């Protein structure tokens, strides 16, 4: 957006940004100066100004036309199939959701009923998948990379799960550790260790004290994410991400070595 050459006229984009108050002070002053000294620039600005209309006023009258009652009724009548796969999000997550939609004026009570009744079948892995599918690389952007805080996070999560978690033990080949935290799934604690994989994006190693499987690695796909899971004598583990199963299995073996029963 800079405009360094005083002899070339400013672009239309810059002039429009000037009209819209989107320029910083220096840029604004440059344009102000050109408008005083260069008649063609002033003429061009006038022409662009002609494209200005009472947009907001005009479109605000469209709001009155919205079939609000019909839309509200339609939302209340959303078919069960639409939200069936929501079944496993935690109640806490739901409450936050419901609150946000009450603000939006969207009726969520019916969805809540479906949700509530379908809950509890699929177990913690489904819940984690629901959660992880929302992660983007940007989700992990602003996390601290400070080893001291990582150690403190791992200590805290490990203590709550009754498991010794050290930075070495939870290192996964090819992925960079970003954060450890505890999630609460219907009163069951889930340790979530989040990593960033340069090629495949966010992935997580999740741990819970509910032992649910065998030591043998098993695979499944949930919400379009690949999952490798196993159990020790005391804990259940899952690795979830967009990485191919082979990658996840290699990482899983590494985690198995680092986190013995």
């Amino acid at each position, binding site marked *: 957006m800079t405009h360094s050459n005083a002899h070339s006229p400013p672009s239309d984009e810059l002039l429009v940004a000037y009209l819209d108050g989107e320029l910083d002070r220096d840029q604004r002053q440059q344009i102000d100066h050109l408008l005083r000294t260069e008649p063609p620039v002033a003429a061009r600005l006038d022409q662009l100004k002609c494209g200005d209309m009472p947009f907001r006023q005009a479109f605000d*009258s469209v709001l009155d036309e919205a079939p609000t009652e019909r839309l509200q009724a339609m939302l209340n009548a959303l078919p069960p199939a639409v939200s069936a796969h929501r079944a496993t999000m935690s109640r806490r997550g739901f409450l936050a959701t419901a609150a946000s*939609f009450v603000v939006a004026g969207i009726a969520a009570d019916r969805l809540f009923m479906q949700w509530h009744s379908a809950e509890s079948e699929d177990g913690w892995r489904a819940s984690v998948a629901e959660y992880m599918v*929302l992660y983007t690389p940007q989700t992990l952007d602003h996390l601290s990379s400070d080893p001291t805080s990582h150690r403190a996070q791992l200590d805290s999560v490990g203590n709550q799960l009754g498991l010794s978690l050290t930075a070495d033990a939870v290192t996964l080949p090819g992925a960079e550790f970003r954060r450890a935290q505890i999630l609460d799934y219907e009163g069951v604690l889930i340790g979530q260790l989040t990593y960033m994989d340069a090629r495949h994006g966010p992935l997580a190693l999740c741990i819970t004290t509910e032992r649910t499987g065998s030591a043998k690695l098993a695979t499944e796909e949930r919400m379009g994410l690949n999952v490798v899971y196993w159990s020790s004598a005391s804990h259940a583990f899952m690795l979830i991400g967009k990485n191919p199963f082979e990658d996840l299995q290699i990482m899983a073996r590494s985690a198995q070595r680092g986190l013995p029963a």
Partner: protein
Amino acid sequence: MLPRLWRYGLVLSRQKHLADDLVQATCVRALERAEQFAAGTRLDRWLLSIMHSIWLNELRSQRVRQGQGFVDAEHELSFDGETEAQDHVLAAQVIKRVNALPEAQRETVFLTYVEGLSYKETAEILHIPVGTVMSRLAAARLKLAETATPRAMSDKSTGERR
């Protein structure tokens, strides 16, 4: 928020029944992804952004695939015949002109000038660089200036580009 969503749906699709569909699809998607919202964006921005993606990726392509195309800009997104008050005539003219813009310019003008979003916020909702927002607005303003009233245009014989 529902009327605002519906209005954006109407700006995108230019047809009322599609605006209804867009609101429904957007709310369903929003509920499906509710935890994403907890991450802390503004709800209205978030919903507009969801609607934009649904239109771009799903509904619009469906319309094109089905060979239905788009109705002529003359015939939709206008007021019902009864509401002929002066203000509404003016509003209808503005809407008609905006409606005649290409889709990308139309929604950029809408988000920036009607919803009052900053260039940056508009860019985020549309998943485009700020520079693209700027060039769309510049192009839209020129086009709107061309279709402005003849009286306004008669004063502008100069103003040649560059």
